[in-house]
């Protein structure tokens, strides 16, 4: 009888402890999923997203000015801009959790953006230099052909004509 009671209590205690462990795990998960952000945290996140977008726009603009094809970069910027707009809207509506997560997503989208833009800019600068060399070579070659043609013209006109024997 005593042993039976002991085992019953043991099983009950085991059940209780497992329940509490599960409950704790659920609480931790819930906290992760529904983390609460304050207004100031959301504001910081939204401002960070804005700064990041401006920095990336400047990098893309510099690359474009160097002659790089920035269409892919601009698509990424557009996506980040859409997320940022939604973050702004969520912030205005007082939904600080959505505002923070959307702003963070926007920043994530642009994580390697500046490096990619700089790489494109360098490649475009190299290409520009090669184009300049080709242009310079073309100009020099044109001058040479003109010069050679002028000499040929002079030589042609100085060629002594055969005098027919009378």
């Amino acid at each position: 009888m005593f042993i039976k009671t002991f085992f019953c209590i043991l099983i009950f205690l085991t059940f209780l402890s497992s329940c509490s462990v599960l409950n704790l795990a659920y609480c931790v998960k819930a906290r992760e999923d529904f983390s609460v952000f304050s207004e100031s945290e959301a504001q910081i996140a939204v401002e960070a997203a804005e700064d990041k977008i401006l920095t990336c726009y400047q990098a893309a603009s510099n690359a474009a000015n160097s002659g790089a094809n920035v269409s892919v970069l601009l698509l990424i910027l557009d996506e980040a801009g859409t997320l940022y707009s939604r973050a702004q809207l969520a912030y205005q509506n007082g939904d600080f959790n959505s505002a923070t997560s959307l702003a963070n997503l926007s920043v994530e989208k642009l994580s390697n953006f500046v490096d990619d833009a700089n790489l494109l800019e360098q490649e475009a600068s190299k290409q520009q230099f090669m184009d300049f060399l080709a242009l310079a070579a073309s100009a020099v070659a044109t001058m040479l052909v003109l010069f050679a043609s002028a000499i040929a013209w002079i030589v042609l006109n100085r060629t002594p004509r055969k005098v027919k024997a009378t």
Partner: protein
Amino acid sequence: MNLFERRILLILISGILILLVASPVLTRLLVFPRTEFFTEFWVLDSNHGTKDYPFNVTLTHDYNVFLGIANHLGYCAYYSVEVKFRNQTQSAPDRFNHASSSLPALFNISAFVADEGALEQPLTLSFAYQYNESLSRVEFSSLKLNGNELDLNTMITRDKENGFPGFLFFELWIYNGTSNSFQYHNRFLSLKLDMTV
């Protein structure tokens, strides 16, 4: 071959050679310089035309339009389109004084457009409103734009033509890198809508 023929031959050969060698330079030089720098801004109906803009608006019905921007400014531009809504009496953008509406933006659409590039975005709109029979006016609660619910605290009273006209308009702003701020780009598009009650 006489001297005249030799001269002709020399001129021909020289001309062809010069054209061949100078072609890379000529392709750069023989391009008309750009003298006009501007931005195109358009709104089209759901068929990509201009005949079927939404006008008679019914409650919670979805309406589709296309909003487009084409950049001819000579540099990669960062635009922001401010979406606004007004009734008959509220502030409208002024085309002659180059002034934007004083109403706050309901939503901002960011657009990054490369030089000589264009961007077009589909917009899906629906309005939530109710008719206040005693005051004979339409009271808005929200505007749904591409799934984003925008707070629309405005009302429209009956006009002379027995309708309830509202104006959904889009103002184009451009980022100025010198002043580090957005400036009104003197362009707006307006859709006149009549709320069916």
